[in-house]
């Protein structure tokens, strides 16, 4: 009696695109993590007025925010496992919420205050996503693990 074994995730694109997309995913994911660390430093600069009154923190967020939809695109092109794809979509969603929260500070201050906790969550998720994909793809263009 044949036993149904789980199939490895099928790459959505050809084998030549998937490994490149996977490496691109790893690079972009770690760049995002780096940007988030810088972003936390910019909060400090604004908070302690190290460079006078500025909106560096806000402006920088819009500068690197587009990395999250690119990650989703690369995850699909690389044919990454469903779990990683879902985590990447969750990261995009949390990032969108993150940019929205400060805009409701006047009407819903307690909800807007979640901006700081959500920042921790975005960082944690970004590191999880970056760590979950190996640099070298598996033999069929699928992730190595």
């Amino acid at each position, binding site marked *: 009696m044949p036993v149904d074994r789980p199939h490895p995730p099928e790459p959505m694109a050809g084998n030549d695109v998937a490994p490149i997309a996977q490496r691109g995913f790893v690079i972009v994911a770690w760049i995002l993590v780096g940007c988030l660390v810088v972003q*936390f430093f910019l909060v*400090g*600069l604004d*908070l302690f007025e190290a460079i006078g009154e500025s909106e560096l923190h806000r402006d920088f967020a819009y500068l690197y925010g587009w990395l999250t939809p690119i990650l989703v695109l690369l995850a699909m092109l690389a044919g990454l496992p469903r779990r990683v794809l879902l985590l990447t979509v969750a990261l995009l969603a949390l990032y969108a919420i993150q940019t929205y929260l*400060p805009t409701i500070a006047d009407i819903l201050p307690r909800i807007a*205050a*979640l901006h*700081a*906790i959500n920042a*921790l969550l975005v960082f944690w998720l970004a590191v999880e996503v970056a760590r979950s994909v190996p640099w070298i793809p598996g033999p069929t263009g699928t992730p190595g693990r």
Partner: protein
Amino acid sequence: MHISRVVFAALAWLFVGLVVLQVFYAGMGLLGGAGMRQHVEFGYVVSGVPILVLIAAGAARAGQLAVYSAGLLLITFVQTVLPLLRDDLPFVAALHPVNALAIFWLGLFIARRATAFARQRAEETTEPVQAQPTAT
């Protein structure tokens, strides 16, 4: 020995929870219109917990985790000092949120490892004793 490992893990998770609450207070101060007083005062409460985590790690003989716990105590202490430098060294004081990230990350790392450490011991003690073969 096992209880000390459970206490160690519980204290590590308590610290992570308090850090999250402290970050919420920071958000309340910045965006919630509550001011920073609550964040500052609660900060001194939170900064005391790593001492208990370190003691518990020592009691549990957690080895390398005890070293990490000492590191957690150190960066938590640094965290309370950083805002005091805002006038003299504002660029150093600006590391306060980055250090908060490091505290959260290291706290989470220790809590996860401490949980595995406690479970490891629990599995060792609850492992069924194999019956000795008897001659018939």
